[in-house]
């Protein structure tokens, strides 16, 4: 009998909680698909770098589980409150509390298990999409294959069940404490509108807006960054997120009380009051939703940044098929060439030297003028802090011990290999090949340099900014190109080999090359198992996102590896962003749908006092829209400020040629796309509920 009752109850409430059910299904599907990445053996075999993605997805899962636990807890409590009258009636009829509590638990379990099973089915589909995206990033062929790994299903089920059991245990405690009277009246508790100290509280609204303004200004122009201020602003931000709604509600109430002009226009009075009273009763939930939206926004924005980086920068970062460094001044790369010939069809292999003349004025200029260094290498009077610079030079730091020079003939040969047009230099001239990102920061600074040639000062003939492997191979951030006669008089700094291969490089070429490196103290392997550049006088430039400071660069091997590492960040961020977004939208949607009974009465009254049915539908739309849009818009403002700031830093640091508004723009498009789906579903359901006789 109880089972039948529970089943009927689930069926009856299914309409109101359909959105919740679908979200739980979707979240289970996401969880299952991402857990596959953690457990997939094929994937583990494929990638031999440290399993960063597994670790990060694992961490993301912790957040996801936490938020799902919150959602379930919220929904279970919410449904209990909405149905308290019904439970009170059961009690009156003589049912025991324990029986009712079991009934309620059974209903929730039925809903949960249903969503879980649907989620698994959808999860298998999502898993295929996710894996094919991942495999294509790794430039591997993916054949559709269903991974129903036991551990993966168990982990998903465990996360899911854990959330449910926690929520239900809390709920049964509530049941034990409640009495019939409380149950019968629990549904009406929210109806009393208590207004007090509104005049005072309304100031929270302009203060919150002001705080956001100050926060934005501080982010963009603030100089004093220390732990204290950061913590102060973070605490302030959290407070603002929660107090904003209290202020907003009071602000509207005061406006209505003051009888502002808008109050006298059509249904505005009704809408403003509805909105303010809803915001007042839900202020804490609204704050939490804003926080979730903000995290979703930021997560997605960051994911798009890395994705953009992956698409724009990575190809240019490794312009040569193979590039090899040697600290030896007369290296002939015989062993490496032999290996290359064995393993691949070499189109061209070119050995050349990088020179130095014992000076480091360009390096010093960079240290003292680049934005990324700030005041670090500069005294108050603008002179360089030489001791700091010397400490930071070489050993894989930003710049080497000396400035790097290349002869014109070598430069033109390399340009030809890369398909660039050759350049010419007259005697007594030099050319700066510099990273585009650095050039955007520095502009023309040749007048501040005094490059000495063998017969006196050289003049700058211009800049070139094409991608040119400036992360420690052909210099760090820049290389000075001088006529061959000048390098003849210089000392060799180190040797390089650049090779063009026919077709793609074999998968294990990089590994085999690394195998040639003799493992001594100087020639270490980095964490990904690659031989590092051994000569401690060179630097790796100021790139911050991906610095691949390795002795052997094989482009076709590195790019998938770096892409995989970047995906390790992108995937969990998207995962968290999507889950948080859906959870927040579900709460908004379910709240409105289950309130529709109360609203039905209100709209009925509006119709009785002369509002047309069509106008009522319009008012429903406006009301829902205000309620949906408010936390989303507020979160968009907060995350917009932070995103723009991060975008500026990101563009500066990586040199991607993207408008700083683009990342946030794409995130907004994605966000409001999903938002529109939830809004439409809620609107349709809501209008149906209101119109139902």
């Amino acid at each position, binding site marked *: 009998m109880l089972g039948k009752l529970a089943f009927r109850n689930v069926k009856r409430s299914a309409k109101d909680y359909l959105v919740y059910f679908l979200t739980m299904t979707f979240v289970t599907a996401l969880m299952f698909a991402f857990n596959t990445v953690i457990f997939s053996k094929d994937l583990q075999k494929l990638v031999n770098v440290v399993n960063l993605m597994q670790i990060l997805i694992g961490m993301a899962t912790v957040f996801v589980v936490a938020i799902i636990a919150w959602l379930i807890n919220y929904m279970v409590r919410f449904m209990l409150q909405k149905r308290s009258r019904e439970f009170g009636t059961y009690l009156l009829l003589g049912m025991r509390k324990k029986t009712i509590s079991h009934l309620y638990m059974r209903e929730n379990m039925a809903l949960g298990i249903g969503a879980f099973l649907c989620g698994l089915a959808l999860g298998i589909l999502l898993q295929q999409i996710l894996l094919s995206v991942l495999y294509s990033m790794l430039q591997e062929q993916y054949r559709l294959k269903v991974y129903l790994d036991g551990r993966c299903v168990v982990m998903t089920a465990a996360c899911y069940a854990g959330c449910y059991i926690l929520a239900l245990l809390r709920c049964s405690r509530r049941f034990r404490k409640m009495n019939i009277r409380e149950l019968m009246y629990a549904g009406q508790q929210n*109806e*009393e*509108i208590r207004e007090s100290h509104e005049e005072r509280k309304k100031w929270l609204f302009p203060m919150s807006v002001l705080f956001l303004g100050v926060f934005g200004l501080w982010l963009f122009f603030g100089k004093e960054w220390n732990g204290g201020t950061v913590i102060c602003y973070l605490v302030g931000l959290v407070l603002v997120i929660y107090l904003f709604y209290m202020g907003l509600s009071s602000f509207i109430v005061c406006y*209505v*009380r003051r*009888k502002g*002009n808008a*109050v*006298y*226009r*059509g*249904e*505005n*009075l*009704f809408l403003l*009051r*509805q909105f303010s*009273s809803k915001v007042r009763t839900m202020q804490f939930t609204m704050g939490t939703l804003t926080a979730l939206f903000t995290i979703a926004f930021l997560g997605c924005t960051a994911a798009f940044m890395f994705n953009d980086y992956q698409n724009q920068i990575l190809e240019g970062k490794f312009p040569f098929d193979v590039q090899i460094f040697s600290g030896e001044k007369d290296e002939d790369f015989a062993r490496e060439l032999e290996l290359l010939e064995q393993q691949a069809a070499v189109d061209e292999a070119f050995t050349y030297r990088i020179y130095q003349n014992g000076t480091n004025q360009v390096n010093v200029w960079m240290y003292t003028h680049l934005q990324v260094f700030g005041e670090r290498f500069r005294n108050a009077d603008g002179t360089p802090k030489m001791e700091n610079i010397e400490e930071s030079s070489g050993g894989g730091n930003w710049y080497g011990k000396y400035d790097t020079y290349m002869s014109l003939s070598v430069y033109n040969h390399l340009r030809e290999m890369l398909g660039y047009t050759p350049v010419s230099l007259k005697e007594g001239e030099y050319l700066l090949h510099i990273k585009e990102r650095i050039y955007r920061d520095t502009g023309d600074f040749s007048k501040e340099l005094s490059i000495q040639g063998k017969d006196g000062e050289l003049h700058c003939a211009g800049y070139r900014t094409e991608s040119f492997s400036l992360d420690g191979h052909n210099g760090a951030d820049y290389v000075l190109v001088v006529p061959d006669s000048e390098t003849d008089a210089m000392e060799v700094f180190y040797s390089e080999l650049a090779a063009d291969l026919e077709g793609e490089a074999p998968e294990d070429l990089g590994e085999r090359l690394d195998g040639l490196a003799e493992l001594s103290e100087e020639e270490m392997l980095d964490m990904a198992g690659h031989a590092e550049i051994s000569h401690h006088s060179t630097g790796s430039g100021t790139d911050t996102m991906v610095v691949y400071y390795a002795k052997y660069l094989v482009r076709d091997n590195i790019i998938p590896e770096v892409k995989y590492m970047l995906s390790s960040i992108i995937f969990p961020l998207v995962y968290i962003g999507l889950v948080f977004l859906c959870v927040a939208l579900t709460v908004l949607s379910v709240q409105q749908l289950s309130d529709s009974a109360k609203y039905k*009465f*209100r709209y*009925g*009254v*509006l*119709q*009785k*006092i*002369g*509002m*047309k*049915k*069509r106008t009522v539908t319009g008012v429903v739309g406006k009301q829902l829209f205000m309620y949906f849009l408010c936390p989303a818009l507020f979160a968009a403002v907060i995350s917009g400020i932070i995103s723009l700031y991060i975008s500026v830093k990101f563009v500066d640091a990586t040199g991607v040629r993207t408008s700083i508004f683009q990342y946030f723009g794409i995130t907004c498009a994605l966000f409001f796309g999903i938002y529109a789906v939830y809004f439409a579903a809620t609107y349709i359901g809501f209008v149906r509920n209101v119109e139902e006789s």
Partner: protein
Amino acid sequence: MKDYIRICDVEKYYGNDSHVTKAVDRVSFTVDQGEFVGVMGASGSGKTTLLNLLSTMDSVTAGHIYYGGTDITELPEEKLADFRKDNLGFVFQDYNLLDTLTIEENIMLAMTLRGKGRNAVREECEKMLGLLGITDVRDQFPYQVSGGQKQRCACARALVNHPQLLLADEPTGALDSRASQTLLETFTEMNRTLFATIFMVTHDAFSASYCSRILFLKDGRIFHELVRKEKDRRRFLGQILDVLSLTGGEFSDAR
């Protein structure tokens, strides 16, 4: 104006082929302008259905209802809403006030929905609050005031746009005797000073005794009619009770 509202052979049937309930069965009567008409009847006699038909909230199965020259049974839904907005005011047993709005705002909203200007809204609202004696509680929310005050607010909201007809469905049903008396006196006052035409459904003889004419409904038909004329209220009440006792009435609220 005579024959201000004409109800001609109105029928309202519910149900399907196998089982038909005649909620209103060939009812005809007229209401003059400025009249205070009451409809009495036992539960299920069709009085609320009749009110719903008059108020355009329900459609007739057959017959016609004329407001002046307009036959509302022929109007399409969109025009009906306009008609309702421009001509009718409602007072219900359960007040039907919006709980998120204060007493004053409930009255204001009825006017702003009709696009009235700021000054008109203010003036009219002030006047109504004063007339109905609820100025003191204007800033309170419905849950903060008594049932009588709520009903007076509903009454103010219904009258603020000067409707052709005020429809009241058991307006005293949820009020104590004192509040009922105050409300009915207000109705009489409104009827006299504002010339409001009132159509009230009630099963309470005491409430009905404030009307100028009473229609008695049974099984969907009018079976009797009482006119107060110059009689005082107490005598009229006696007459009503007589009718009720003759029908073995279920009304036992004579006070």
